[in-house]
């Protein structure tokens, strides 16, 4: 089995178990304020790390290329409160322009 299949199936099974467990365990188990706190912070940490790693690395090497321009375009779009499709499109178009013409 390839890494892609293991990742696909493993993620899917755990994702469902997590969702189902929420519907099945007593409420007090997961409603502790510390758990609520951690739950609000984990996505911020992981998603920010993913933005950085996906923008500036290739395998385990740091790399600054057209993706830097794409990221800046996305940030500008978000500052101007653009909806999600525009954010992704501005990143893709500006990055493709740099890749193709510079």
């Amino acid at each position, binding site marked *: 089995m390839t890494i892609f299949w293991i990742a696909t199936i493993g993620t899917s099974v755990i994702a469902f178990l997590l969702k189902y467990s929420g519907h099945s365990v007593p409420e007090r188990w997961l409603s502790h304020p*510390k758990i609520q706190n951690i739950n609000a912070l984990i996505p911020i940490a992981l998603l920010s790390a993913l933005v950085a790693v996906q923008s500036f690395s290739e395998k385990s090497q740091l790399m600054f290329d057209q993706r830097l321009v794409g990221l800046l375009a996305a940030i500008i779009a978000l500052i101007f409160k653009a909806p999600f499709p525009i954010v992704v499109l501005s990143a893709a178009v500006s990055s493709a322009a740099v890749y193709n013409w510079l």
Partner: protein
Amino acid sequence: MSVSITVGAYGVAFGAAAVANGFSVIQACLLSLLTFSGASQFAVIGVVGAGGSAISAIATASLLGVRNALYGVIMAPRLQVKGLKRVVAAQVTIDESTGVALGQEPRGIDAMRKGFWYTGIGVFVFWNLFTVAGALGAQAMGDVRAFGLDSAVPAAFLGLVWPRLTGNFERALAVGCAIFAIAMTPILPAGLPIIATAFIAIALGLKR
């Protein structure tokens, strides 16, 4: 309706990004059908695409999926469903369905249930249709960098995290974790710099 368009756009971005990161069209579609949680799905393809192991990909995606369990805790007493219906309810327990349901709370329990089911099932259908479109589109492209797809993935993550940066504490955490992950990338095996930031979040969450 605006929810549907946004979800569609995310779905296309996910399908395309999955293929750009080496996943097949079938695997992209299975992730959308079975995992059905945008941030987790982007995480698993992101970590594998960055050269991380299957374990670190699954761990990162699962940490992001924990919030769905907490949504389930909120929704279960309000939905009061059992058996197969509970299985379906669990599968469509995501940011959007829980958010809409809680928004309907002042209008009573029936409006809440309706909001949950319509949003959950509607998003499920849109998300999966658009994943197929995105995956097939990317497959037809060849060099994804020429179309800017390599930048679409981090932009998608940024779009997911941006609305959560509601205060200075959150913004500092985001910038700190981004710098930490970059600094650790040449040192730690791929995938670990990302997971390690979850421990920063846990430590801060316990202290706060």
